[in-house]
Each structure stands twice: as C-alpha cells, then as structure tokens.
C-alpha cells in the first residue's frame, strides 16, 4: 500500500495529466458526426504511434557497437511505430482529401 502511495507521489503530475486527459479526450470528440468516424479513428490511431518516442529513447541509449538481440528488437519497435505514425497520417489525409474534393 505504502509503495503505491509513494508511486503516486513520484508520478503525481503524470497521474493528474491522465485524469484530466481522459475528460479532454472524451470532450474533444464527443460531437463528431458519423461521417467522420473512420477518419477520426484513423487519425487517433496515428497519434497512438507516439510510442515511437519510446523506441527512439530505447535504441538511442543502447549499445550500438554490437548487434545484440535487444538492439534488433528495438529497431523493429521503431520501424513498427513509424509504420503506425506515417501510414496512419497519410491514410487519414487520403480519406479527408476526398471529402474536400466534392466541395468544388
């Protein structure tokens, strides 16, 4: 129990961020028309690729002098996350581009 309280205190800012972000996330998209569900899901999906930062930190501080299993898996983590980010944003843009076209 004490350990959990210590953890809460150590990460109190982050936990505050989480608590408030949950409401923010709900509030920000709660009035979305159903037409935009798919692009929004796809865009949110691309944002969840923010794990890419974790991959960069991981590989950034690992020993690059030899090809260990750790390094290789870390590289894969970055590649996967990049697929998520780049693919996600490009696909979303392609979808939204079509909505724009018909306004002409």
């Amino acid at each position, binding site marked *: 129990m004490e350990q959990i309280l210590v953890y809460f205190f150590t990460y109190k800012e982050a936990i505050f961020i989480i608590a408030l972000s949950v409401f*923010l996330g709900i509030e920000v998209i709660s009035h979305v028309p159903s037409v935009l569900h*798919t692009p929004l899901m796809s865009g949110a999906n691309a944002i969840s690729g*923010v794990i890419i930062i974790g991959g960069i930190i991981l590989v*950034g501080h690992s020993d690059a002098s030899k090809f260990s299993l750790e390094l290789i898996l870390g590289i894969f983590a970055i590649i996967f*996350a990049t697929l*998520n980010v780049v693919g996600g944003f*490009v696909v979303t843009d*392609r979808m939204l581009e079509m909505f724009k076209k018909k306004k002409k």
Partner: protein
Amino acid sequence: MDQVIGNLYGIDFTLGGTLLELSYLLAALFFVIGLKLLSHPETARKGNIYAAGGMFLAIVTTLMFHKNAQGGGIAPANIFIILGALGVGSVIGWIMALRIKMTAMPQMVSFYNATGGAASALVALLEFPNADMNNLGSVLVTILGLVIGSIAFSGSMVAYGKLDGKVGDIFSGMMKYINIFLLLVIVAISVFIMTSGQTPEQLNWAIYLLLAVSLVYGVMFVMPIGGADMPVVISLLNSLTGIAATMAGFIYNNQAMILGGILVGAAGTILTILMCNAMNRSLLNVIIGAFGGGGASSGKDQVGDMKEITMSDASILLSYSKSVVIVPGYGLAVAQAQHACHELDVILSGKGVNVRYAIHPVAGRMPGHMNVLLAEADVPYNQLFEMDSINPDMPNTDVVMVIGANDVVNPAAITDPGSPIAGMPIINAHQAKNIIVMKRGRGKGYAGIENELFFDAKTRLLFGDAKNTLQTLVSEIKSL
C-alpha cells in the same frame, strides 16, 4: 545545449532538457488541437496535419536533446541507426498508405494499429530488464504496457485478417471460458512477477510467458466476434494501443507519450461507444454476443421466392420514377461500382428523376466508410442523406435501389425481437413502393441472417456483380 540553466529540487537542468520538455508540451497541444479539428468536416484535414506536425516535432527534439539518467545524449552511431529505422518505416508506411484501395481502408487502419501495439509491447519487453523490482508501480506499468500492447497487436492482426477475408469466424461456447481462464493466467503471472522478489534476469521466463499468453488472448478475444462488429473492435483495440503507449510513457516519465496515449485511449473508447450506439448495441453485447457467429438465430422460415427482374424492366421502372433512393452497401464497394453507380444517378437525374443516396451509419465496413467511397466517385455531398433524415420520406419513394447492402435494410431488426440484429436502426426500404435489390448471389448478409425484404412482394432482384449490372443498366436506360 548541455549548459545548466537552473536547479529544481536539488537537480540541475540543462537548456536542452528544458527545450525537450517544452517541445513535448507543444506536441501535446498539437495532438489535442488536431483531434478537435479532426472532428469537424471543414477542418478535419488541417487537424490531421497538426497532429502529424506535433509528432514530427516530438521525434526531432527527442533525437536532439534526450539524455539518459547518467546525462548521456544519443550517440551519432545510434542516431544513424534510428534514422535508418525511421526511414524504412516511413517508406513502407507511405507506400502502403498510398497503394491501398479505399475499400480496404478498415483493414489498413487495423494493420497500423497492430504495428503500434507491437511497438509498445517490444518497448516494454526490452525495458523490463532495467525495471526497479523494488518499485512496484514501475514494474506494473511495464507489465501493463507489455500485456496491453500484445493484446492490441494480435487482436488487430486477427481483425485485419477477418476484414480482408483471410480469417473466418470461429465460435464455440467454450471460448468464453477459455478467455476468462487466459485473463486469470495473465493476472496470476503479473502478480507473481511483482511479488516474487526475484531479479528481472531470473524472471525472464515469466515475462516471455506473459507475452505469449497475452498474444494468445488477443487472438482468442477477437476470433469469436463476428465480422459485422469489426469496426467496434478496431476502435476498441485502437484505444488499447493508446493506453499501452501511455504505460510506456510512464516507464520513461515522458509527458508527450503519456498525454498522446491517454488522449487516444479516451477518444477511442468514446468512439467505440458512439459506434455501438449507432448499431443500438452495448459494448458488452458486442464482446460477448458474438454477432453473426452462430449465436441466437431467427427461427423464422422465409415463405415465397426471390423474384428476379429483367434489365429492361428495371431500366423502365427507374426511368419513369419521380423519386429514387439508392442504398449502397459494402457489396458496391467490393465491386468497385461507386463510379458506375454515380453514372446511373447522373443519367437518371438527367431524366428528371430525383435521385438520393441513403447512407446507413455503419454502411460499408466502418462508420463513415461509405461517405468516403462515394466522395471518391464524385457523388455530390448534397445527394447523400443520413438514415434519420431520409426514412420519413421512404413511403413516398417510387423505387429504392439496394446495391450490395443487406443487414442495414433488414426489417427483421424492427419486426423480429429474436433476431440477432433486433433493435438496430435500419433504412426503411420496405416502405417504398418498389424495391430493386442488386446482389451477387442468393447468400445471406454479413451478419449471416436471412433478409425478409428480399422475399417481399414489392421486391425484385438483379443478380450479378454490382459494377457489371449497373453498367448494363446505364446502357439500357440510354437506349430507351
């Protein structure tokens, strides 16, 4: 950049470190503003670019300024490797995103979600050896990152396979119990890891076992859920990927990851609920109910036959109508018939027929998917009507043309309380004066249930590939 510019709680902080945190704040704001703009049609594209910009900023500043606990920056050799990995991922991701057909969009999103989940699981797996076993909180976030990331990965891959038609629905009553058992195993291993008092090295086997069980659980979780519910599942898995990224953010105490992840987690959850509402089903019902997977089936036998119509009869019927409503479904998308469909609507409009499209909220494979497909074919926005705004007008409609849609016009949703789709709002095609249904064959719809509309006395069927049928119909009408 390594210049010390201040001191907080007895710890010096550098200019670079401060700029990094500042850039994370900016990135987080870009994510929030991006999501906000994404939820309005006029600003959606800008929102996507804002979010992408936030991500780009966070990546660049992390590469430039990130320091480990010992204050060491990222070495040039490592930067080289990272840039290589970023390059490979970007090129593959970009090419895939540009090549994918709009009809296959849902499985593409699912695939990208899988890669995000895999990345989270890998990061957690690789950080486990560095976990401080005396700090239960930090062990817990690592375990959660691993478990949630793995489930999101394997679950999304199954969803991808199902949408792509590579994986069928497998359902058995046993699966519910197997899944509960697997969840208990996951909890048990996690508790063991946290309380055993052993070093991460000694626990290596346990963490790999946890990875394996979580992967299996992801497969088993999605496997029994019917294809028609995949959009809901993808949205749910999407929010899981966000939560996994948040957990990984805790490992590094990285605000951009924590905020970006939880934002997606919350937005994904609310989007999941919105989609469930559009189908008038609860989330629990989707997960446990196994829609279309052999659950409760309507016992009603169909009386009568499906009656076909000839091309020339159909073309005369359409040409001399005042009002025609087209109900497009996934069959239209599969046949790539959206352009042919637009051609038909142009030629009918030219003859003075009032042509409108009725779009069911879950037409296609995802909410809003059909709007994307019709927009691709240049169908004007003002011809697209949502279900609720066109339904009152159905009794005055001369011809409803159902193209490759099935469950969204099935009157059983209203009339048969025992039907698996009971309560789902539908487009009231059965109230129109005439109904023409274009279908590939006599099979059932995606939810696997019989559709009494097809046997209605007012209904006539045109069998065949939607694109060919539409093209033939267009040339018939031209020759009238």
